[in-house]
Structure formats: structure tokens, C-alpha cells
């Protein structure tokens, strides 16, 4: 047991005591530390004004990532290093290249979003890899600016590498490494504050034990959803188990036939290996949340919270993924689609937790296509997400897995369409013939993301698009991403 949270804040060891476990990092910075450079503009991880950089020990190095402070809970920072906008400039006031470039390019107008942009650029700068335009768009997708139109900020991202290197900053990052080693601790962080309990185990067996002992506890990984329960729904969470420090759950292993993704792996951790095996799933992930969200949000969380509009489940179901659930020492597995029983109802006992997702590899990685439809390409929630995996042999569809999000109360396979396709020639005529069957598979609703009629029409057209994209001579059909027709 420990009643204190220890992390590094702007180069100094910070010990937080007597903190409600659901205190957000943003409120801690602004209210307790009076570090007001970090701004609140949405409190839901959608605007990036609160972006800070969080470093984590990774062997003999520290890996830094941009995160939204508004939905990070302070106990999740145990053993990590936080850098805020106040800690970039040289002590004498000289600016870090990512700051200087914004000044030089006229990249700030009202300035309220600027600290967030600075921190996103800072995280990018630390990677040491000079970005192309697409990468800049991805890195900045989670930072909204209402004044500039973004051009000057993009220019800053392109030119910051041309400025002299900030040696003072390199020294500070070196200091983070030694401080992180100093405060590193094994074993569970657990504390209670006025009836609210927090556990962050580091060991999966301990997690299993805690889960059994605290059936009512909410599991949090990146808090990109649970954070909103706190900031938006203002729910009081009695017990929380944080799986973010369980190293075993963050592992991603490719066996000969299967990709095993630990439930605690962040999208950013998984993106690279997913891109190798399922390039279009990676493209879908690129458009899921924004970098600040993907840096902490997990595929496991995207499944476990049972959302009908989550983007990872349709892709994983189309791939035939299986879910591994853990209860105590027992495990069971099921096809992912069976996990989603109804809206708000998943096949998980209160003392079970999602441990892993097993995804069978494809003989042809390009067979899976994932389509996300939303009002905005980046950092938006899908109106419709359609994922298609049709195996064709000798001109005929021999196996079909098609799954949609946003079309039903859960992610759901298009079973009628699938069975109508199998055995048929993979032709436009077949596609046109089976398309009406989508109306038997789905009865979507109308909401602020789209009408039922739009969802149905778009879903039908996505099957058409899939068919077109599987034909070799088809020119690029997309308007976003690396495979876009223009750009």
C-alpha cells in the first residue's frame, strides 16, 4: 500500500498525496501546481489544448508521447515523467525550436490552442524523424485551432528541424531518465481517498487477483473513455483498477499464424505491427481518435467498453479475431462477435477481464479493407464503419466476413450478405444482387452523426467500393490517407 503518487514533473520529482484518484492531470497542473500554460477547452480529449508530453521508461531510454492531460488521471502517472509547455524554453528564455518555429511562421493568433500545438510538435521533435505532410497532419490531428487555418503551424512543423538544436533540452531529458530510474518501483500502487480506491498492479497475476477481489471496480487502461465518465458524466467511481502498468498486458506477439495483442497495448504500440499484417486496419487506426488518444487508448478498451460505434471491433471481427477473457487463473476464448450481446451488454462476468485479442493472420494482407465514414476525416466518431474480408478463389467468393459499426446496437456481422456472397462469382453483378440483403442485416438509427437512410445507403456503397478496390485495375478511390487519390 502506498498513499502517494510519485512522478517527475518538469524535471523534478513530484509526490502527490491526498489526491482524489479521479483528479485529472489537467486540474492538478492548473489548480495544484498553478501551471496554467496547459489549457482546458473541451475536457474530453478532442481539442488538444491540454496536450502535455509524458515520458515512460523503456529499457535504457525514455519514450515520450503527447497525451491529453484533461482525461489522464493523476495516479496513472506513477513512475512517469510529465513535461509541460512551461518547461521547454531555456532558463534564459531562449525558445525551443518547436516554439521558435511557431513564432517565426506566425503560427499563433489567439494563442489559446498554442501550448497544445507546441507540445504536440515537441513530442514529434523528440522522435528525431523529420515528418512529411501526411505525418504532420496525423501528429496535429488532435489539436484544434480556430484562428490560423493551420498552414503556419504546418510550416512550423516543417521548419523546426532547421533551427539550432536545443542542448539544454537534451540535458533535461537525460535527467528524466535518471529520475525515472530513481522512482521506479515494482508492486502495486494502491491507495484510498475518502472511500475511492485505486489499484495499479504491475503483474498480471496480481491483476487477476484484484479483479476477483473487487468485482465492482472499473478497469482503466488509457482513460480515454473512463476519463470522460469523470469529466463529462461526473460519475463517482468507487474502485478503479489501472492496467496501464501491467507490462505483460501490453505485449504484442506475432506467432506464425496469429497476432496476439495484449489488452493493455496502446494503439500507438500496436500500429506498426498491425500495419505490417493488416495495412488497412492500420489506416483505420490512424483515423481513430488522434495521436494523443492513440498514445494511451487501447484496443482492449475499445472492445471491453462495448460501444456500438467503436472502430476496432468491426475490423477485428472481419478478421475473425478471438477474445481471451481471464477470471482468476481461468481463461476462456470466444469469437469477438459473440462478446457483443446487446447494447451495453457484453459476455463478460463482473470478475472477468479482457486479457488478449488473437487475430489470425491473412494469407493476403490487402484482403481486409476498412472504411470509416464520418463528418471529418480525422479524430471523429464513425457514422458508419465497414470492414470487409472476402476470400476469393478461382473467381468465386469462398469466405466472407463483413462487419459494420454504427449500423446496429453492437458491432455486427452482415450474415445475410455474407452467406449470399459465398459460392458466388466475385463480380459486380453478384455484389449488386446481394446488396439489398443489407436491409435484412441492419436497421440503423438516425442521430446527429447521420440519418438511417444515409447509413444504409453508405453501407451498401461501401460493399461496392470494396468490390472495386479488390479489382486490380481500379484507380485510387480514397480521399484520405496514404493511398489517397490526391495529395
Amino acid at each position: 500500500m502506498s498513499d502517494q503518487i510519485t512522478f517527475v514533473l518538469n524535471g523534478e520529482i513530484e509526490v502527490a498525496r491526498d489526491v482524489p484518484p479521479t483528479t485529472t492531470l489537467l486540474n492538478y497542473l492548473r489548480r495544484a501546481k498553478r501551471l496554467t500554460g496547459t489549457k482546458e477547452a473541451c475536457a474530453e480529449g478532442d481539442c488538444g489544448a491540454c496536450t502535455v508530453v509524458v515520458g515512460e521508461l523503456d529499457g535504457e531510454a525514455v519514450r515520450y508521447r503527447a497525451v491529453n492531460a484533461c482525461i489522464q488521471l493523476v495516479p496513472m502517472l506513477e513512475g512517469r515523467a510529465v513535461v509541460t509547455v512551461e518547461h521547454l524554453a531555456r532558463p534564459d528564455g531562449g525558445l525551443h525550436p518547436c516554439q521558435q518555429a511557431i513564432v517565426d511562421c506566425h503560427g499563433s493568433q489567439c494563442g489559446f490552442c498554442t501550448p497544445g500545438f507546441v507540445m504536440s510538435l515537441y513530442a514529434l521533435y523528440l522522435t528525431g524523424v523529420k515528418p512529411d505532410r501526411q505525418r504532420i497532419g496525423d501528429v496535429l490531428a488532435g489539436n484544434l485551432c480556430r484562428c490560423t487555418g493551420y498552414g503556419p503551424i504546418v510550416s512550423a512543423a516543417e521548419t523546426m528541424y532547421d533551427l539550432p538544436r536545443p542542448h539544454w533540452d537534451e540535458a533535461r531529458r537525460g535527467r528524466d531518465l535518471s529520475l525515472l530510474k530513481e522512482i521506479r518501483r515494482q508492486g502495486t500502487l494502491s491507495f484510498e481517498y475518502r472511500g475511492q480506491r485505486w489499484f495499479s498492479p504491475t503483474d498480471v497475476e496480481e491483476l487477476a487477483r484484484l479483479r476477483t477481489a473487487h468485482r465492482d471496480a472499473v478497469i482503466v487502461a488509457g482513460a480515454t473513455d473512463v476519463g470522460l465518465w469523470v469529466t463529462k458524466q461526473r460519475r463517482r467511481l468507487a474502485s478503479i483498477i489501472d492496467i496501464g502498468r501491467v507490462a505483460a498486458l501490453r505485449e504484442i506477439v506475432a506467432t506464425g499464424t496469429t497476432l496476439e495483442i495484449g489488452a493493455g497495448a496502446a494503439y500507438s504500440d500496436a500500429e506498426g505491427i498491425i500495419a505490417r499484417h493488416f495495412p488497412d486496419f492500420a489506416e483505420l487506426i490512424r483515423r481513430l481518435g488522434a495521436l494523443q488518444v492513440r498514445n494511451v487508448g487501447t484496443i482492449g478498451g475499445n472492445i471491453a467498453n462495448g460501444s456500438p460505434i467503436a472502430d476496432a471491433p468491426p475490423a477485428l471481427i472481419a478478421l475473425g479475431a478471438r477474445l481471451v477473457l481471464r477470471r482468476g487463473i481461468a481463461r476462456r476464448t470466444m469469437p469477438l462477435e459473440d462478446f457483443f450481446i446487446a447494447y451495453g451488454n457484453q459476455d463478460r462476468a463482473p470478475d472477468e477481464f479482457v486479457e488478449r485479442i488473437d487475430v489470425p493472420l491473412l494469407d493476403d494482407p490487402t484482403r481486409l479493407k476498412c472504411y470509416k465514414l464520418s463528418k471529418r476525416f480525422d479524430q471523429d466518431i464513425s457514422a458508419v464503419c465497414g470492414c470487409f474480408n472476402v476470400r476469393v478463389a478461382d473467381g468465386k467468393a469462398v469466405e466472407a466476413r463483413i462487419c459494420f459499426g454504427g449500423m446496429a446496437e453492437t458491432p455486427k456481422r452482415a450474415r445475410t450478405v455474407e452467406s449470399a456472397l459465398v459460392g458466388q462469382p466475385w463480380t459486380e453483378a453478384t455484389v449488386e444482387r446481394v446488396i439489398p440483403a443489407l436491409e435484412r442485416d441492419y436497421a440503423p438509427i438516425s442521430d446527429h452523426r447521420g440519418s438511417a437512410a444515409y447509413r444504409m445507403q453508405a453501407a451498401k456503397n461501401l460493399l461496392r467500393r470494396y468490390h472495386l478496390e479488390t479489382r486490380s485495375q481500379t484507380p485510387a478511390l480514397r480521399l484520405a490517407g496514404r493511398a489517397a487519390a490526391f495529395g
Partner: protein
Amino acid sequence: MSKTAITGGAHAAFSHDSAVKHVTGEALYTDDIPEPPGTLQVHIAMSERAHASIARVDLTKVRNQPGVVAVLTARDVPGKNDVSPLKGDDPVFADGLVEYFGQSLFAVAAETIDQARAAAKLALVEYRDRPAILTVDQAMEAMSLLEAPVTLRRGDPAAAIAAAPHKLEGRFYVGAQEHFYLEGQAALAIPGEDRDVLIFCSSQHPSEIQHKVADVLGVPNHAVTVEVRRMGGAFGGKESQGNLPAAVAALAARMTGRPAKVCYDRDDDMTITGKRHDFRIDYRVGFDAAGRILGLELDHAIRCGMSFDLSQPVADRAMFHIDNCYYLPAARVTSYRCKTHTQSNTAFRGFGGPQGMIGIERAIDEIAHVLGQDPLAVRRANFYAHKRTAPSTERRVTHYNMVVEDCIIQDIVDELVASSDYAERRAAIREWNARSPVLKRGIALTPVKFGISFTKTFLNQAGALIHVYTDGSIHLSHGGTEMGQGLHTKIAQVVAEEFQVDFERVKITATTTAKVPNTSATAASSGADLNGMAARAAARKIKRRLAAFLAERYQSDPESVAFLPGRIRVRDSEIAFETAIRDAYLARVPLSATGYYATPKIGWDAATGEGRPFFYFAYGAAVSEAAIDTLTGENRILRVDILHDVGKSLNPAIDLGQVEGGFVQGAGWLTMEELVWDDRGRLATHAPSTYKIPACSDRPLDMRMKLFERGENVEETIFRSKAVGEPPLMLAISAFLALSDAIASVGDYAIYPALDAPATPERILMAVERIKRATNR
């Protein structure tokens, strides 16, 4: 060696004065100001009905919650229960009746904001629902209007249309828009002696905050001081919408004797505050074979919301801008100011101008479609006469009888057509579309002519205050506020230019009602025009005194005293600026002055429809190219070429920033930004998770912007510059019509897409499907 030039004078592409503070996080916004000890946090509780009488409110439980210090209701208001800018129809707290979902009911002041929010939830409010009118269509059906319809007319358009060789008519919906300033509404009130209150807030209109707070508290204006250093964005959304949080903070401070703060979080902000008005536009137009408009009739149905707020001048500006750049020999526009049970819509960059303008752009696009012409040809055929043409030319008079004396749209369009390869690209796109079954591209060029001046003439005045201290440093205050547009930078450049000192010598200070009184809102793009002239007047007063003093001392003529970079020349002597100032002080020359400016020539009488509402016009044009996916409605702006007239730019870097930011914000309005209310009148899209403003990658892939180099204001504005805040927003109409052009290609241009705004993927796909069905594709 003498300096040859100052840094940061007029026309310099100088950085925003706060740029370094922005990137280091040092720039203070209202919620960042260190709170005085004991500051209370105040939460405003909101109506959960769109239209209802309030049968009973029981706040007992609220008052008894831990941390709660005061609960504020309508009965606690010592003065007037009103925060409206014009008409007295926006209660601080609802009193027996609520008229929108989100209306302020009462407020809770507590030690922490979490306590205040938690307590507010425990209120027992009994509503008796009344029928709610939520949309323009419903309001027009019920004739629910705030006032009688207003008509502006020139000639006999009905007869002209009847006699015209061609005619068409249509209906067009243009959606609302949320400001989405990154910094929410915020106010901190600190009580003082004598019932005084000092307010720090995020407002475009400190004087109005001062007046409304004084009225609410029942004290004279002199008891209230309002200070604004900067806003984290505003866009019109902080012209009147800051009144409520400031009044509530001030009232809480008065009731408790403690400092009190109101900061809306994003959801509350979007739920409480007004937005850009959505419009339903009905148009009938008669035209000849060349596409020349002979007569135009328009009906604007405008969703004002539950009260007037600024809807009258917004609706007026929409009526003034139905012509855009086009001469209308006969025209009528009738404006229906609809009362609905939704947020009271308010100022938003363009202030009705964009909605007015897009109506005629839509009509012209359709005329071109009917005639099978390039819309650009129809646009050119209808332009107002160029400023070089004879003053007697008939095609210079607007539908409100103002003579357009400065029209340069032909020059801008000609240059832009050439630099953007408009004609070649248009042909190439049509060829490409014929070969591309799924993706389609479109292109459009649209011009902008935007009237500069507040149409309420008395608002066109400004003041400034300059002190020169004995070390030669300069303290500058003016009535304008900084919301990111770089106003303070520009005004400091004006002062630096006048005194011929480096920019750094001029200290830009917070706007405060204690230094410059009775100011107008920083709005209508007028900030630099008005305050620049006022600051120059103040600087010139001090310069005249210095010149007189130096002329006397050196036995010369004041007229021959010259302000050179960093120094002053009198006869053969050159005196360093700070030396001259020191000497002037010792000689007891006053080194502080106020400056004042009132825009000349203008005067508009809304009652008679007579006079000149605008001092001048700002012009610009854009070519947008867009692509759509006909399977999904997804879309992308591929390339934008802009040529925009800012006269002789005060600061090209800042002006280009306004052009780009305005375009992208306008593109958001017309494409992805969609506000959705549910059947109960609750705003369903009240945060960035559901309301999507353009993100980084939505910026056009290829964006080429230029300021019109030959630009020079024909009127005597500050260094012959032109206003830039609002006009570029309307350049984005080109993006909307480019999308429409892409959709039209689906039916081989045989069917007009009649696309409504915003052009979301859904609207685009549905338009594509309509055309496919009609053409059997």
C-alpha cells in the same frame, strides 16, 4: 550612424505581440489570472426545457450542500434582470418562464466548481411545458416572429422578373455555426469599496459588460471597471455573450463580498450561447440570355432564437449583402426574423453578410446552369461598374441606393483567373470526371464585396490613450480588444510609425473601461480602422506638442520638425527620441493624450432606408477545387487560390493569417460543421466530439494566398489599409460551389444539385443519389 528605419512600423510583417508568450504558456487568459484568496467558483444552472413556465423551484437542498456559499436567482438581482445588448429581453435568470433548453435558471457559488455543479443538480424544478418552436420552418408556419418583416426594395423586381426572358426560383437552407473559440466564456469579479466591482473577462465589448453589470447591480457605470487583456478566440461569440457570465460573477461577488468566477466548460458554453443564424432563403430571379440579372426577389427566414440579441443588425447586414459584387437593377429582400425556442443567435464573423452573400452566389450558379454557361461568365456579366468607369454609370448603385465608388473586383478576378489557371483547370476537370466513375471533381470561383462600417452609424467611433514616460517608453491603450486578430500589434505599429520609434518601445496594455470609455465592440472588422485612427490622433497630439516645444527651443518652425527613426530633427540638430522626451518633461510639456476618431461620410437611417451605411468595401476572390466520393459523400478541398484586397496592408503577415483562418472557418461552416438539436430542443452537438470544426488535414492540400498588391483604399483610412477580419470568411463560398459542381458531374451537368449547407458527406451523398435516380445512372 543614424537609424534608417524603425522595426515594426506600419506595413511591416511583424509578429503578433504575444507570440512568444503564446508559445511559452505565459500569456494569461481570464481563467489563468491568479485568483485572489477566497475566490468563489460559480456554476450557472440551465433550463432542461425548450419552452415552459416554471411552476415551482425548490433550491433548499442546493443551499445546504457542502461548500455552497450562495445561490443566486432572479429575486437576488438588485437592478435590472437583463443582460441583452439591445432590447431588454435576455434575463440573467429565468423568471417564471424558460424559452430555450440551456437558459440560465439560477447560479450556485461554492468553494470549488465541482461543489457548485454537484449542488446545482439537486434543484427541484417543476416545469409546465408549452409548445416549442425549434426550426425556421416551424416558425414560418406559425409566423413566430420577433418583429414585423422588414423589406428593402429597389425598383419593381416582380415586374422585371415577369418580363425577363429567363427566370428561376428555389429554396436554399444554410446551416448555423458554433463559434468554437478555444477559450470558453469567462469572467472574474472582484468586489471593491463603494459597491464597486472590477471585472476581468473574455469579451469583445468591455463597455457593454460595464453597462450591463452596472444595470444588473443597480449602480452607476463608474462603479464598474472591466478589463480584457486578451481572448482565446471570439469570432463574434464574445460580443454580447460575455454579458451573462460577467453579470453572474459580479452578482455573486456583490452578494458574498468575495471574488467570484464564472468559466463555462465547453458543453455549457455551447448549450448556453448563441450561434451564427441559420437561414432559409427563397429566391426568384429573372435574367437575360447573357445571365444578367434583371430582377431578384428574396425572402430571408432567419432563426434568431428566443430573443433579439444582435439579430436585427445581423439580419440587416444579410439584406445589405444580397448583391455581393453584382448590380441589381430591381431587387426586393424581405427579412423574417423568426423567434424560436433555441439559443439566441448572435454575432459571428461576417454578421449576416455570409448568409446574404451565399444566396446570390447560389442563384448565379443556377443561372449559369440553366444557360449552360461557365458561372464565372455570369458573375462577370453582373459585376458592379469598375471604379474607373464614369460616375454617371448606372451600374454602380446598390439596392440600398449607395453608390459603389471603389469597385475593383474585375481587377482581382482577372488576376486570379490567370494565376490560378481557372479556365484550363475547369476544362481538365470536366474531362477527368468523364473518365472517373467514383471520384468527381469540381471547381468554382466566387468573389466577395463586404461593406465596412457598423450599420448602426453611431457605433463608428473610437478612442485611445497614449502616455509617453520620461524614459521615452510609450504606454498605449485603445478601445479595441485582442482576440487573436493581431489588433494590438497593428495599433502599436501605427504608434511606432507615428513616433518613428521601434515597436518594442510601445507597451501594449490590456483594454480597460477605466482608460478609454464608451467604446464600441471590437467587431465588424473595424478594430484597426477605428482604433488605429484614434491612436494616431493621440500620437499626433503629443507630436504636435513636442514639435512646438522643440521649435521654440531651437528657434525653428514646428512644421519643419521631423520625426526620423529613433530621433527628432529640428533645424540641423538631431535629438534622440528619449532625450527629446526628457527635455520636454523638464520643460513641463504634457506627454499624455487621448485620441478620438469618428468615421466620416457615413450615415444610415434604417427607418427610411436612406443614406450610406458603409465607408468602403473590401474585395477578394477565391478559386476552389474540390473532390467528392460519389459512393460515400466524403469530400476534400484540393486546392484554393485566393487574391484578397486589404488596401495597403498594415501587416501582411497578420492579414494573410486572417485570410487563411477566415477561409478555413468559412469552409467549416459550409462543409462539416453541423449543429443538431433533438426534438426537445436540446443541442445534441455540444462539444468537439460531436461538433466538428476543420482539423489540420482538412486544410486544402494546396493553398495559394496572395494579398492584392495594387490594393489601396480610396478612402482615408489608417495608412490606406482595409479591414480584414470578416471578408475572407466568405471566400469559402467557392469551396461549397466547387462541391456542388462536382456533384453536378454525376448527371453530366444536366441536373442542378441544389445542395444545402453544410455540405456534409450525408448531404452530398443524398444529392448524388437524387441525381443518379433522375438520370437513371
